[in-house]
């Protein structure tokens, strides 16, 4: 039996009807990873506990126990701590680190019966837009291996696209779920800031980071979002709001709904295939009954400087903990003793971190340093508030914003890696949602002439995720491409 292009809901049904066991299904995906992931490089490590977890799930199914994901295999971005399974953040700094506890997101998935297949590749410490910054090598795009998977959750996106996991967890600090989802042709959902606990997730930028699902269907994304959301006493930024049953409430009729198009997004230079898919999406939402209105977000043109100042400042503080004392990489001091305490830190950190991580720690250090704080970090925080106010005004005119995820489809491996500023500019359409804290989703729409996937982005106001799932489903139904797998998979 083939499971590679089945949705989580289809797999759940097969498990519930006992057509297949979780052990069989888990083994199917482990076999596919073994035979197909060698050159794709989506996984950093496969879990040796997966089949045991699947056996336990089968026992529960036999005993008539219920779980929203009972027996369903999932992949986890290697930024989330998994008790007893190596967690690296794709960094030499954390190679071999085995966390003594799991992230709340992982615990929530496992408490609903999900089986962890393994840990997925990413840009080191989630810093990158192409997955080329991984210490374990770049993830390739399954639709064309000369192209990037996107980042930072590149492994999470490529694994779903190639049928190496039915669903995965990624994290999104400035587009790291939505952009690779678009590049690989899968659904990617970043929930509202505060919906999902950050406890046990290796911190990059604490006021922006949020975990979410990458999946084949919008309904699957809704289900996984339900499972991982909710207040957590271990993360004081999580919201106490109740979590709606999004997946059971999806309404594909968009009658009475207003879809906003951001004027400034369409004034920028979009690749012809991105423009083409946007035009289709606009037709589709109209067909589903929505009214299309134009809105303006003039400050969104500054999203990149504001985002990179906030993100790097927070990163410089968050990554100060990696000092080589209690865990993580330590240089060889037997051969060459440390000349001072600073020398000890500088060597551990200088050898343990890759170049992009160092670049960002240093940009943040600069933005926070005496004499520059007002012009950079404080200024960015002020524009961030003005941007949030503009979004609030936009949502008075519409229920959901629709626009591109990126200006172009996936680019070639090696094309942008030598120019950090050009790489940062990839994130122009995705970073605003993180700055403002609103939910965002990428939905696959179609393909470029070169055969690369193109998605569209939906954003709504904070804590109103349902409208994203409604509009996303209406688009997905009409685009009708989610069953397709790349050649060779």
């Amino acid at each position, binding site marked *: 039996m083939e499971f590679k292009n089945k949705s989580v809901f289809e797999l759940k049904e097969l498990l519930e009807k006992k057509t297949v066991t979780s052990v069989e299904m888990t083994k199917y995906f482990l076999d596919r990873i073994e035979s197909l992931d060698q050159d794709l490089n989506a996984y950093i490590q496969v879990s040796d506990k997966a089949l045991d977890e699947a056996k336990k799930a089968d026992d529960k199914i036999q005993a008539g126990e219920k779980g929203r994901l009972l027996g369903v295999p999932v992949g986890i971005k290697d930024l989330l701590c998994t008790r007893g399974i190596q967690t690296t953040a794709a960094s030499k700094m954390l190679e071999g680190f085995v966390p003594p506890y799991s992230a709340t997101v992982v615990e929530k998935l496992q408490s609903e019966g999900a089986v962890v297949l393994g840990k997925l590749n990413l840009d080191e410490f989630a810093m990158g837009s192409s997955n080329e910054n991984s210490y374990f090598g770049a993830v390739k795009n399954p639709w064309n291996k000369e192209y990037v998977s996107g980042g930072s959750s590149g492994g999470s996106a490529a694994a779903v696209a190639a049928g190496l996991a039915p669903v995965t967890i990624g994290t999104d600090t400035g587009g790291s779920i939505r952009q690779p989802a678009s590049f690989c042709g899968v659904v990617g959902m970043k929930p509202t*800031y505060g919906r999902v606990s950050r406890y046990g997730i290796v911190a990059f930028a604490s006021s922006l980071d949020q975990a979410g699902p990458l999946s084949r269907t919008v309904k699957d994304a809704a289900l996984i979002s339900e499972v991982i959301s909710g207040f957590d006493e271990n993360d004081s930024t999580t919201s106490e709001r109740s979590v709606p049953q999004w997946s059971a409430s999806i309404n594909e009729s968009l009658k009475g709904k207003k879809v906003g198009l951001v004027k400034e997004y369409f004034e920028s230079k979009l690749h012809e295939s991105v423009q083409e898919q946007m035009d289709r999406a606009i037709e589709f939402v109209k067909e589903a009954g929505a009214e299309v209105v134009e809105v303006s977000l003039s400050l969104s043109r500054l999203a990149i400087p504001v985002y990179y100042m906030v993100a790097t400042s927070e990163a410089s503080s968050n990554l100060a903990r990696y000092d080589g004392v209690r865990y993580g990489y330590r240089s060889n001091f037997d051969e060459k003793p440390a000349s001072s305490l600073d020398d000890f830190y500088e060597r551990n950190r200088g050898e343990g971190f890759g170049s992009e991580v160092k670049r960002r720690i240093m940009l943040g250090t600069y933005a926070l340093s005496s004499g520059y704080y007002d012009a950079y970090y404080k200024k960015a925080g002020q524009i961030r508030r003005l941007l949030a106010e503009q979004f609030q005004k936009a949502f008075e005119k519409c229920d959901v914003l629709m626009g591109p995820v990126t200006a172009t489809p996936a680019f070639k491996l090696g094309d942008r890696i030598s120019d950090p500023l050009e790489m940062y500019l990839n994130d122009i359409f995705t970073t605003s949602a993180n700055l403002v804290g609103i939910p965002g989703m990428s939905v696959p729409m179609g393909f470029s002439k070169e055969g690369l996937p193109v998605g569209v982005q939906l954003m709504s106001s904070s804590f109103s995720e349902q409208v994203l799932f409604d509009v996303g489903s209406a688009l997905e139904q009409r685009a009708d491409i989610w069953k397709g797998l790349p050649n060779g998979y």
Partner: protein
Amino acid sequence: MISKEQILKIAKLARLNLTPEEEASFSPQFSAILDYFEQMSEVDTSDVLPMITPTEMEFHWREDQAKDWNMGKEVIEQAPEKSGNLFKVPPVVG
């Protein structure tokens, strides 16, 4: 323009050794990035309170109670070097 000397100063503040390639490339890269970021100065932000988090600030009060936490051994296991149940570091006298 961010000079190589400035780059070395920032690296020192961040406690990072740089490779010779990083020392050479970071200066032009930082200059280009920070030049681009200058656009922020065009916006009038007088009297605007910086936004530091998008969350609805909720306060979660709880009793300050000690809890058992039996992971000491597993935590020490992760140390690059250990001595019994202690983290071990090399001599750093200089």
